[in-house]
């Protein structure tokens, strides 16, 4: 079995939510909040919320879209906000630009809704993160499989979803390591293609594990004739 020179270091992750300074009771205020809130706030309401609501695989994408749908009652805007796929972004700045663009374009087309009061206000929050070494590392596919199986939801989210921002690549920690440390580019691509919007964190993890198991079988020695 191939042994990687650079091991995969699994992390433990914990988040604390800080309540921010902005809130919105109209779509115009939402736009203002999106323009001025912190990067940690954009991260919280998009990347982070997908992790804490991963079990909703139908019709939940990010907090902005959910609020536009339920509290602002603006279906078309909600649809456009929900359509922003966080996998397309390697920086919060780019994601913020697109969120602002969607809301701004909507208000240009529907200025009558800009100051209409919503049912409930939107409160901008921020994710503060603590990361510690989990004490588990992998140098082989077997060790990688066992490590992924042991991760908490938060740690899986950290390595599989939030990592895109850290790496500033359209990939995740797992795929990045498999491709670069073990040279398993096809496996890395398959894992990177798992849809995080239609899977729960558990089902996404099961798919990662199944793909790794399939790869392991390819490398097993053939039974002696």
């Amino acid at each position, binding site marked *: 079995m191939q042994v990687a020179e650079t091991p995969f270091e699994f992390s433990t992750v*914990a988040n*604390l939510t*800080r309540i921010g300074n902005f809130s919105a009771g109209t779509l115009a205020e939402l736009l203002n909040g999106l323009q001025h809130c912190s990067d940690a706030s954009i991260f919280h309401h998009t990347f982070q919320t997908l992790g804490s*609501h991963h079990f909703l695989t139908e019709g939940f994408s990010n907090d902005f879209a959910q609020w536009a749908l339920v509290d602002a009652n603006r279906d078309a805007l909600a649809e456009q906000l929900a359509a922003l796929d966080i996998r397309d972004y390697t920086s919060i700045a780019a994601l913020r630009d697109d969120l602002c663009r969607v809301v701004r374009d909507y208000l240009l087309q529907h200025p009558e809704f800009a100051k209409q009061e919503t049912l409930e206000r939107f409160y901008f929050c921020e994710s503060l993160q*603590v990361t510690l070494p989990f004490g588990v590392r992998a140098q082989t596919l077997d060790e990688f499989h066992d490590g992924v199986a042991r*991760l908490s*939801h938060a*740690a899986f989210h950290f390595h599989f979803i939030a990592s895109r921002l850290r790496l500033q690549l359209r990939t995740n920690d797992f795929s990045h390591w498999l491709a670069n440390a073990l040279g398993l580019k096809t496996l890395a691509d398959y894992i990177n293609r798992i849809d995080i919007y239609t899977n729960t964190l558990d089902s996404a993890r099961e798919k990662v594990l199944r793909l790794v198991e399939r790869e392991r079988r390819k490398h097993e020695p053939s039974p002696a004739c």
Partner: protein
Amino acid sequence: MSPVQLASRTPLSDYAAVIGAGEIEELRTLAKPLAGRTVEMVNSTAVGGGVAEMLNRLVPLSEELGLNIRWEVMTGGEDFFEVTKAFHNALHGEPYHPDPKHFEIYRAYTEQNLKRIPLDAEFVEIHDPQPAGLIESRTDGKSHWIWRCHIDLSHPNRAVWDFLETYVAKYNGALFSSPEFARQLPIPQYLLYPSIDPLAEKNQELDPAFIADVLERYKIDPSRPILTQISRFDRLKDPVGVIRAYRIVRRYFDCQLVLAGGSASDDPEGVVVLREVKAAADNDPDIKVLELPAWAPLEVNALQRASTIVIQKSLREGFGLTVSEALWKKKPVVASAVGGIPTQVIHKHTGLLAHSVEGTAYQIRFLLSHPEIAARLGEQGHQHVKENFLITQNLKSYLTLFLMLSQGTAG
């Protein structure tokens, strides 16, 4: 004054079957740098109410993780709890006429407790307004003081909040159950959800025979739909509004209503409200008003599990842990969009929200007509609680906060 004696201890490893071994391993990893560090929790009651229930579980689990944690209860006479109940209602936005005597009583009991409670831990967490004044004992800048607010502060009475704010502003940070409750304060404010314990008597799986016994004991017919609200007999829980909603539903469905709860030791209004509820029930044999002793956890559990729909029609709510309890049991929930409830009931995903008596009745009728939708909401509600509102998640949030405070990265 001595620390609270804990009722029971459940080992952390028992939770692995519920949340997975990986989550437990993560808690142990996060706790390692905090081993031996001192933590003190202070609230105003050892029995009754969500805070005491939570601390009863949280404290032994923290101990098992190696934290040196103790739980103290503030003491006070009847006059103190009458004042703090008035403050509680005023902070929820109820009418209140400031009375200087009230503030004096609060200060006097704070002084009395300051002499009795040793507040010398590295992390001191004070729960709710009653013991908030204990911050006065802080003498050095080394310890970390956190004020945990479990109530809805979105529309507080100005006089009471102004009084309380003088204390709260001295803390290192404040924790709220919903961002809506945060105030303009010079300290960082964090979101921390309360939690339920899946292994506690109130939430554990029950033998169907026990559930049947409980229904028989309270003369509840298991063959007809059962609508249930579990809450203290408190006007802010709107039990009379629930009866009005039930009467609308009754026009279309042959159902029963169960209103069950008890009175917390710091809630002297309960008896009066119970009388009002019985009057509103007007001897309807299908309305069961059950006053349960010290919340009778197994009975509450059985009533929730036997329910067709669980209601939480609060007018104001801190968080409303009874909602999490019902969702954990995969029950469809119809609840008011107040306080922390919309965090738990994501409309059309994990339950249905309502804004009035009529709206509550409509959503109940909808779910009684669409049991398949009710079942889906219940299933997703269970997942939501598992992910966000279990005691283990609460424990993780505390460990994260303590780590950040000690590292100076808490904002």
